[in-house]
């Protein structure tokens, strides 16, 4: 069945291979990025949501 369907698309066999390569490379780059990125930068990023509580004057953590 799938052969029957897929044969009608030119070079269909290369599609999954191309998708696989694109994503394999993308995730390799992503992992490389994640493992080599500066810890200081990651710390800055992860503290972004908490920044306003540290700096501005709006209600500071009213207890719920």
């Amino acid at each position: 069945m799938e052969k029957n369907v897929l044969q009608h698309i030119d070079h269909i066999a290369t599609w999954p291979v191309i998708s696989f390569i694109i994503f394999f490379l993308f995730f390799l780059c992503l992992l490389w990025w994640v493992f080599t990125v500066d810890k200081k930068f990651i710390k800055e990023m992860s503290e972004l949501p908490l920044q306003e509580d540290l700096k501005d004057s709006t209600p500071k953590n009213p207890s719920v």
Partner: protein
Amino acid sequence: MELQKFYYDNKIVKAFYIATVVFGLVGMLVGLTAAIQLFYPIFNFNLQYTTFGRIRPLHTNAIIFAFVGNAIFGAVYYSLQRLLKTRMFSDLLSWVHFWGWQLIILAAAITLPLGFTTSKEYAELEWPIDIAITIVWVIFGINMIGTILRRRERHMYVAIWFYLATFVTVAVLHIVNSFEIPVTFFKSYSWYAGVQDALVQWWYGHNAVAFFLTTPFLGMMYYYLPKAANRPVYSYKLSIIHFWSLIFIYIWAGPHHLLYTSLPDWAQSLGTVFSIMLIAPSWGGALNGLMTLRGAWDRVREDPVLKFIVVAITAYSMAVLEGPLLSLKNVNAITHFTDWIVAHVHLGALGWNGFLVFAVLYWTIPRMWNTTLYSKKMANAHFWLGTLGIIFYALPMYVSGLTQSLMWKEFNADGFLVYKNFLETTVAILPLHMLRAIGGSLYLTGFILMTYNLIKTAYAGKFIANEEAQAAPLAKEYVATSGGWHYRVLENKPILFTVLSLVAILIGGIVEMVPTFLIKSNVPTISSVKPYSPLELHGRDIYIREGCVGCHTQMVRPFRSETERYGEYSKAGEFVYDHPFLWGSKRTGPDLARVGGKYSNSWHYNHLLAPDAVSTGSIMPSYPWLFEQTINLDLTAGKINALRKIGVPYAENYEATANEDLKKQATEITSSLKADGIETPSDAEIVAVIAYLQRLGKDIKAEKVAEQP
């Protein structure tokens, strides 16, 4: 650098949160009504506007798009401004977005009970509303991206990534799945037919769960959990991997909704494989959330916000493990079409979505009104009512699902079905349905308690419509604070980021769809499958209008228990003229794919008038209006023309003579009814419905006859 003073817009957040609470109440009340209808059919009120088939989509749409939708927008408008240290891009766009969305909800609340529906799950709204949704969604996107472009914070926090992916993907899903050809202002036919339509629909349906009920909520988790716990997320690195792997893998998993159907095997397998892979990013994200509380678990005892978040993430982890397991063909064979799926969905909706929304509301409302929560005790009571509600909802449904499934499949020693009469399997689970309604009531009671608590909180405080804040403007030139180029590849390039997310989700969609779009010419043709006659077409449209697909499937799966009960399993070639497909996703009643010719015309007539009188104990509502309302013959030509345009081979100019054929077929049915002592006008809607039901599954039987020498 000099600090700039600016104001966060809290008014728009307040508006979205009020809408969240109001539509949450409405959506859950409708859901509870639908649940009660399943054991006390009298609560269908014998009114066409309130039957289960019509209010079930009202419930799902109200919860997904009105309750959850408004909650998402409120949370995005609150957190986006603060994460980017700027006011929303345009107040006007914010308000156009708000009122546009509420008008869409109003349109849905009117049209769905009226029976204007495409029948495609979570995409039931008709084409003019689809266009309105597209416009409002684009306005939301412009407002969000505009805000990002004029931010005072260089980097985009991971929550914003999830919001962007939500915007991009929902836009693509909605547009692709809404391709339909209009017949009238409130009637259209899906562009796709049969197998293709099913694939597109469940690619959409699955990803509506992924990108409307999951990604924005993960964004909310990444913002509100650190705020509520007052500590940064456990691992920001993990959140980056979480994001990319989740959006890439999710988009492929749609076909797991179609296991054992007529969808080609390769697509089914693809769905299964990617569903299993989904466990990794989903659990990665959930663990990242729970681990954020490391060292702060003592606070969970005291803080209702954290309690709600913990249960929400726990429900999420359970649902995202259960989902992939349900995608295994052997598990799916037992659970699909049963109440198990209803339990699974509600674990996600009540636990993950509901509880996270409650946490966000309990956290945000006191802050926006510059006060403290009116009653912590009441919030705790809400927490327990909600938790018990989820348990009382889910457990009976799991038991019910298994019971149903085992009864459907049970054979006796002689090889015959033990429960030959489907009704026995329905009656057996009614007590469990009652328990489910109790669970739902508990959950709703908690919700009402929260509403009261929040209103009292708001009255005790003073609303800060414009909240003052200060931040330094963004420097034109980026000065890296921490090293080389690769630290700023994506986080400070919102447009590139959006495009990459789009590419990630498109690849999965395209690889699955392109072959299936071409299937049409490759589906093993069944020469005896012919387009519907004009009368059957009208009947089919009434079947769609009444939401029959909510309880009856038209998909006999290749199991012996099903071929024994219903007849030959369904083939892809049988659905080539089905715009839209009506395979269904739940069997509250029996499958109807092969019902044609099984009963007499008068049986159907009596059954639709008083189901309980024909099948004692039936919970199907009666449909008295089908006997009074007449078929609208003026629409026949338009329907034929529309379907011809999308590939149904009606002969040229057939629309001119179609009504003659229609009347002829109607007279045949009325005379057969007359022979059984039933007088009915030949233009009554019931005649069209009977014609349609008697047609179902007949084509393939004709094929068999032709094959015989």
